[in-house]
């Protein structure tokens, strides 16, 4: 019998373990609309689990599941199933829909009063009906300075008070301090909490909204309030299943630290008899399984341990999409999101160590012409890059208010060089780097490009950008930084260029945060320093214009201003990588977060356990 070297055997095994990565096949579903409906199919492994349990992949554990104190994305994803909201996202139509209320609110002519009517049927787990007092408690708890919710506190500042209706106990009016187009949409992110569960002694009722807003009111001196807050903030309300209380159709039955969070369907839930699909709870159990390692995620899909993921890296998605066994059993779908990637210029450098490199919009335009956007999408999305949408302005092309009359700026090194020459940048010392006399001294065109060190994609993109800029005589120093340093540099305007991304939603956008000049002055999120009196006035008008048709015209004009000024080079829309087991049907993939509504998945097997 011939002898086989163990090393040879090992190499053979290793070869076969890697073979699938080489075979690239297109994904079986590529659709660029904000909503993708997947056809139910029966062509999957018939021997696979028939249990009506979805195992969904998370690449990070939720920070907690407290109804108000937390900020991680996995937490938001789980709360959609366990909690309920006054208004919800209508994922199908990418708009806002009523949740715990009967209809969208009636808005007063000044936009400051939003009148809601609660549904009659929502019931807490102890049988109590949802009341206006629960809504008032929620708002007060969120506003109270002793509540540990720093990431959301500022959003609640705009609520002045909530007035219950004298005649109808189901009605209430939310009075806002300022008119803003987001006064309605922002409540889609905050779940309603049960007053009697979190505040059995009704402590918060003793304090008015006015007091909670008053900077001279020192909550820490109020003994009762302090005790309430200490109890409310207790970790058990964010981690211990018995204390995780909500109006959603699922409840947390088990949380294995660092491993998984298991939700089970509530019996006789108030949504049980509802015919509305968005309120449906079809799977008996949803398990969120934490796995951060890309290789073991791949294996867990090959072994069909995981049913769903929306968090795959492009490499894992590509490898799995090309695996015949995975393709047979899973839908693999790329879906566009409202998030986008950008390059931001520091238009108004304040720091003495920063040169005035990008104060001239002609130079910014030249950089836009030098940026190889198509190559950058190829870096991130590999062979699927052709399906990626280019960002042209600050508004996602998925939104109706996107200004389609604006043309994408294409790579054109000659035109860029010409613009730079016109702007006074020349290579006077023949060292291969452009230079210019600024404020009395000759400055070489050396740019520092800061990017996040969290993923190799950012590094690859930054390197491609620097290569392209070098062709026009610009030296780019690459600076990988972690998120904290990145944000600190951006807010303090201590950068030349940054490479980053923004998230988005389908809802009306208030451009103040990113583009108003006061957001630059206050070290807010207007990192570039874009803005003048005209743009500020337009932003102020947009944020108060309730009429969507009028608002759309204003937003189109605003995009033209941005396009003209070129504070950013807008790169591309991000794409979500979804893998979903075919044993479930009734699947829609959405552009908005979390991308999938697991509660609507229907088990296709007729012999479900």
């Amino acid at each position, binding site marked *: 019998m011939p002898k086989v070297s163990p090393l040879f055997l090992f190499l053979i*095994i*290793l070869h*076969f*373990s*890697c073979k699938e990565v080489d075979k690239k096949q297109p994904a079986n579903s590529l659709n660029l609309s904000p909503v993708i409906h997947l056809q139910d199919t029966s062509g999957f492994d018939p021997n696979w689990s028939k249990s009506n*349990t979805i*195992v969904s992949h998370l690449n990070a554990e939720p*920070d*907690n599941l407290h109804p108000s104190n*937390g*900020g*991680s994305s996995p*937490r*938001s994803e789980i709360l959609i199933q366990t909690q309920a909201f006054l208004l919800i996202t209508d994922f199908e139509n990418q708009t806002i829909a009523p949740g715990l209320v009967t209809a969208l609110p009636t808005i007063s002519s000044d936009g400051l009063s939003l009148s809601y009517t609660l549904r009659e049927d929502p019931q807490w787990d102890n049988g109590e009906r949802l009341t206006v007092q629960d809504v008032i408690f929620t708002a007060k708890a969120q506003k109270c300075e002793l509540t540990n919710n*720093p*990431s*959301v*506190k*500022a*959003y609640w*500042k705009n609520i002045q008070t909530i007035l219950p209706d004298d005649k109808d106990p189901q009605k209430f009016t939310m009075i806002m301090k300022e008119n803003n187009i*987001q006064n309605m949409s922002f409540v889609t992110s905050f779940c309603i909490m049960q007053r009697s569960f979190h505040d059995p002694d009704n402590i918060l009722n003793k304090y008015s909204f006015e007091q909670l807003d008053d900077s001279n009111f020192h909550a820490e001196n109020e003994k009762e309030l302090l005790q309430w807050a200490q109890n409310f903030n207790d*970790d058990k309300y*964010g*981690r211990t299943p018995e204390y995780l209380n909500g109006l959603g159709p699922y409840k947390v039955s*088990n949380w*294995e*630290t*660092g*491993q*998984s969070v298991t939700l089970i369907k509530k019996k006789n839930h108030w949504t049980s008899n509802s015919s509305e699909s968005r309120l449906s709870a079809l799977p008996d159990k949803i*398990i969120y*399984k934490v*796995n*951060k*390692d890309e*290789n*073991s995620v791949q*294996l*867990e899909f*090959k*072994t069909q*341990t995981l049913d769903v993921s929306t968090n795959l890296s492009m490499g894992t998605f590509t490898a799995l999409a090309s695996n015949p*066994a995975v393709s047979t059993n899973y839908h693999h779908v790329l879906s566009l999101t409202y998030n986008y990637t950008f390059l931001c210029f520091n238009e108004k450098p304040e720091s003495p160590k920063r040169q005035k490199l990008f104060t001239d919009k002609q130079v910014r335009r030249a950089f836009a012409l030098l940026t190889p956007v198509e190559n950058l999408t190829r870096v991130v999305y590999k062979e699927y890059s052709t399906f990626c949408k280019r960002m042209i302005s600050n508004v996602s092309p998925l939104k109706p208010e996107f200004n389609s009359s604006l043309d994408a700026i294409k790579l054109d090194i000659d035109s860029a060089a010409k613009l730079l020459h016109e702007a006074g940048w020349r290579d006077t010392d023949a060292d291969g780097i452009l230079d210019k006399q600024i404020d009395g001294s000759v400055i070489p065109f050396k740019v520092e490009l800061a990017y996040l060190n969290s993923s190799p994609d950012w590094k690859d993109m930054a390197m491609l950008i620097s290569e392209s800029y070098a062709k026009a005589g610009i030296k780019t120093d690459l600076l990988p930084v*972690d*998120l*904290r340093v990145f944000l*600190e540099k951006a807010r303090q305007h201590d950068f030349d260029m940054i490479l980053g991304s923004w*998230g988005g*939603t389908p809802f009306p956008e*208030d451009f*103040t*945060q990113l583009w108003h000049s006061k957001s630059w*002055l*206050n*070290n*807010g*999120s*207007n990192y570039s320093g874009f803005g003048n009196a005209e743009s500020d006035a337009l932003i102020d008008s947009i944020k108060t214009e309730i009429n969507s048709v009028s608002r759309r015209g204003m937003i189109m004009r605003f995009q033209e201003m941005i396009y003209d000024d070129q504070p950013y080079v807008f790169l591309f829309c991000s794409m979500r990588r979804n893998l979903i087991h075919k044993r479930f049907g009734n699947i829609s993939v959405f552009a908005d*977060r979390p991308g999938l509504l697991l509660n609507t998945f229907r088990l296709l097997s007729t012999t479900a356990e």
Partner: protein
Amino acid sequence: MRRYLLKRIIFFVPTLFLLVLLSFTLFRLAPGNPVDRMMMGSNSQYYQDAGEWSDQRSYWNHRLGLDLPVFYLSIGSWEDNSLSRETAEDTWKKFIPFLHFHPNNQFHRWFLGDNLSSRGIIRGDFGISYTSGQRVSELIASRIGWSLFFALFSILLAYLISLPIGLHAAQHPSSLFTKVSSTSLIILFSLPVFWSATVLLMLFANPDIFYFFPASGVQPTGGFPDGITWIQKIRMTLPYLVIPTICYTYSSLAFLSRIFRVTISEVLKQDFIKTARAKGLSEKVVIGKHAFRNTFLPVITVFSSVFPSAIGGSVLLETIFSIPGMGLTIYQSIDAKDYPVLTAVFFLTGLITMAGFLLSDVMYAMADPRISFSKKQVS
């Protein structure tokens, strides 16, 4: 021995205090502010006024005491500390330098508590995690179990494997087995753990090759079914532990077996072994009864490092195998600048390391009576 122990314990206190100072300062020197991370939520798409955001940032910096100086002490005269300043007799106090400690600083709050979220490390309260909102002691308790298990179990396994290999190599230094085993162990020692962990996963948790073990986690997805016995739980858990245990263990094998080999070789050359052999004792008795006891010293040395490594955990292995241990927690805390967790972990690691060294000193004395901790009188 008692005196030595007492001395070591007295020496403990200033060392621990220095360690605490060092850990507290180091983490605060790193760039960035934990409040910025706390304020990054998943609702950033909605407008928040930059001024409001800034106010909130200041409020939370104040609430967590991060606006206070890290330390606050000043050098003045003794008189500044005296209650009777005006008397003529006290004039001399002006000329005596004095170090004044001011209580309103971050270190003081952490050490003695703030009467709100923490009672201070002096009372055994590490405070509350900035990111998860959990009490740090609960967070560590929920995570340390698996780290401790893998640290202890892997070192036990490493001893069980490396001891006979080392013994055989010491007795038969030129044998084929010795040559093959030492080469293989050196190769294993050189393999990066993240690589070998991935290769083992791809080989033995892969339905395309061998699907013997699950790919991630330490127990069945979603937890154990209701009503099963603990024996059934262990049986269900075992497949999850095989590959991680191999990865935790293999790198220690080369080191331990070499230590055993060298130690036993040295012992076998000693006069008392020759005497034992001369008395006609069998090789089994010579090794088992006389030589073996002397190999305990390296065992003790390595054992003292088990507990600190359990606190530190292994970031890479915990990430690859989704093990809910300390390594990942520390990594996430560094990323979020979660000072209470970081300082607690650093403090505990230091404490346990020192306790480990103390324990090993005692065990040395027990294993080898020739080791003495008291000073010998020179005659």
